């Protein structure tokens, strides 16, 4: 048998490029979503996104349900951090209907949002670990996230989906002793942060795997509609909580951490630093939360009509700007709701540019560093 010289295979066009499906059933991808990669050896020549595996037609379903019935539906749009949906939707409805939310309810909303943000960041830490082969990280981070879910369960009755917000406030008041437990939890989480640093962010192997991967410049981020921690990691100081304060964020004192390198590692570090700020915000909320009603009564929910109008309400989520574009024609049901998921532009458009010429092993790192969450763009 005659052996073919090795370099001959390189000139053979038939085997030069091949198609590789990453997802939907793949441990490196976050959720039920798929990229089709055209590979040249280890390098990616072309990328096609294939979404729709999670498409449920939320926007159509919301047109068929009452304004308050929709609250049970929308948390399912973003699974790791469902509360942003409820708050953004409620804020939009309240603006259109002209409902004033009591101070206490606004504080409760901030507490819920920041807890959800910490939970989502912890979940993203586990993604970092999963993408780089550091399997201790998921065990720690998901275990710690469960303490937050326990508190959510005490507060709202649900572990993952809370359905706790309501136009005009929240559904129930904070139970006795809950705030003490929350501050205990914050102490615990703060004591865990240095351990996460040692495990994940000071880990030399992880640094080598993630530094310089998926560089994103500030201009590219603005041009491609990338928001949230990913934008801030590229050096743009934009946080809706600071720039256009909603709820009571203007009464709270916090910073926007800056990393500014724009690569995958700085995006991970950005999330880790923002977690510290969230803990700071929660501490202030526990101290400052006033007494008073937790909900403004709305009329009969079956006859609750929102005056005609348009409004775009948005919330800074752990992944970026989460927006609800609400159109009402004065009926008992929304006329049209468009949900702006933060991962949309990064996952479906920017990914096609960013992944070109990347090596195959960097794809999961890139996906998890952008914190791409398929349900929010499939809807």
């Amino acid at each position, binding site marked *: 048998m005659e052996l073919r010289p090795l370099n001959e295979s390189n000139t053979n066009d038939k085997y030069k490029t091949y198609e590789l499906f990453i997802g*939907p*059933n*793949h*441990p490196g991808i976050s*959720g*039920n979503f798929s990229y089709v990669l055209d590979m040249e050896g280890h390098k990616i020549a072309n990328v096609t996104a294939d979404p*729709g*595996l*999670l*498409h*449920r*037609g939320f926007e*159509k*379903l919301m047109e*068929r349900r009452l304004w308050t019935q929709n609250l*049970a*539906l929308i948390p*399912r749009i973003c*699974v*790791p951090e469902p509360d942003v949906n409820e708050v953004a939707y409620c804020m939009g409805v309240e603006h259109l209907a002209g409902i004033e939310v009591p101070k206490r309810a606004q504080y409760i909303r901030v507490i819920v949002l920041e807890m959800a943000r910490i939970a989502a960041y912890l*979940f993203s830490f*586990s993604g970092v670990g999963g993408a780089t082969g550091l399997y201790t990280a*998921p*065990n*720690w981070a*998901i*275990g710690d*996230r*469960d303490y937050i*879910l326990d508190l959510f369960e005490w507060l709202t009755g649900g*572990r*993952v*989906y809370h359905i706790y917000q309501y136009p005009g406030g929240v559904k129930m008041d904070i139970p006795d002793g809950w705030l003490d437990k929350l501050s205990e939890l914050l102490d615990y989480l703060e004591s865990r942060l240095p351990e996460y640093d040692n495990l994940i962010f000071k880990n030399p192997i992880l640094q080598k795997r993630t530094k310089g991967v998926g560089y994103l410049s500030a201009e590219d981020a603005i041009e491609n509609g990338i928001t949230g921690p990913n934008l801030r990691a590229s050096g743009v100081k934009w946080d809706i909580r600071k720039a256009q304060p909603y709820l009571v964020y203007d009464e709270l004192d916090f910073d926007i951490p800056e990393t500014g390198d724009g690569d995958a590692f700085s995006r991970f570090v950005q999330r880790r630093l923002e977690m510290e700020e969230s803990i700071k915000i929660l501490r202030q909320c526990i101290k400052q939360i006033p007494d008073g009603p937790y909900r403004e009564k709305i009329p009969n929910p079956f006859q609750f009509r929102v005056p005609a109008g348009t409004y775009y309400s948005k919330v800074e989520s752990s992944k970026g700007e989460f927006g609800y574009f609400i159109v009402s024609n004065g009926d008992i049901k929304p006329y049209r709701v468009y949900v702006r998921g933060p991962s949309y532009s990064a996952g479906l458009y920017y990914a096609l540019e960013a992944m070109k010429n990347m090596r195959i092993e960097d794809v999961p790192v890139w996906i998890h560093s952008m914190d791409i969450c398929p*349900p929010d763009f499939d809807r």
Partner: protein
Amino acid sequence: MSEWKDLTNFFRGRSFWMLHYCTGCGAMELPPTMTSRWDMERFGVIPMATPRQADILLVTGYLSLKSLKRLIYTYEQMHAPKWVLGFGSCTINGGVYWDSYNVIERLDKYLPVDLYIAGCMPRPEAILDSFKKLRELVEKGEAKGYEKYVKNYEWYKANQDRVLKRTKPVLQKPEEVTRSA
């Protein structure tokens, strides 16, 4: 012969390899079940990335038509004995998506389901409990979904093709369709 079967069923029930395919939002409760807090490895269940080495197909939540197609490929790649767990109310009757145009109702029309876990979404304890129940069923030799699938393949195939291989519009007359290809 029956003792031998009992013995194999005993061991099968104690080493389930679960295919880690996140079909829907129920996949959110799997990381806590897998990791330190609930640790399903205690019960011999571990996640597996490839369908060919997996025993359990855990259908975590609703299935869009596009996912259903991939799920059937995946199921047919798995080797018998294999079991399907329907996770959450969406697999039972469509759940909150009962009127959605892209989400199937009732998974058992398309794949043989051995066990359902009710709830939206089921807690990790419920998932662990379902593994225990499935073990009991396997030990008794009652979880025979994969045999049912082979026996009634035409029926399942017809149901699958009905939703996946549509050749004409479901509702409207063709001339009303304005959309170009």
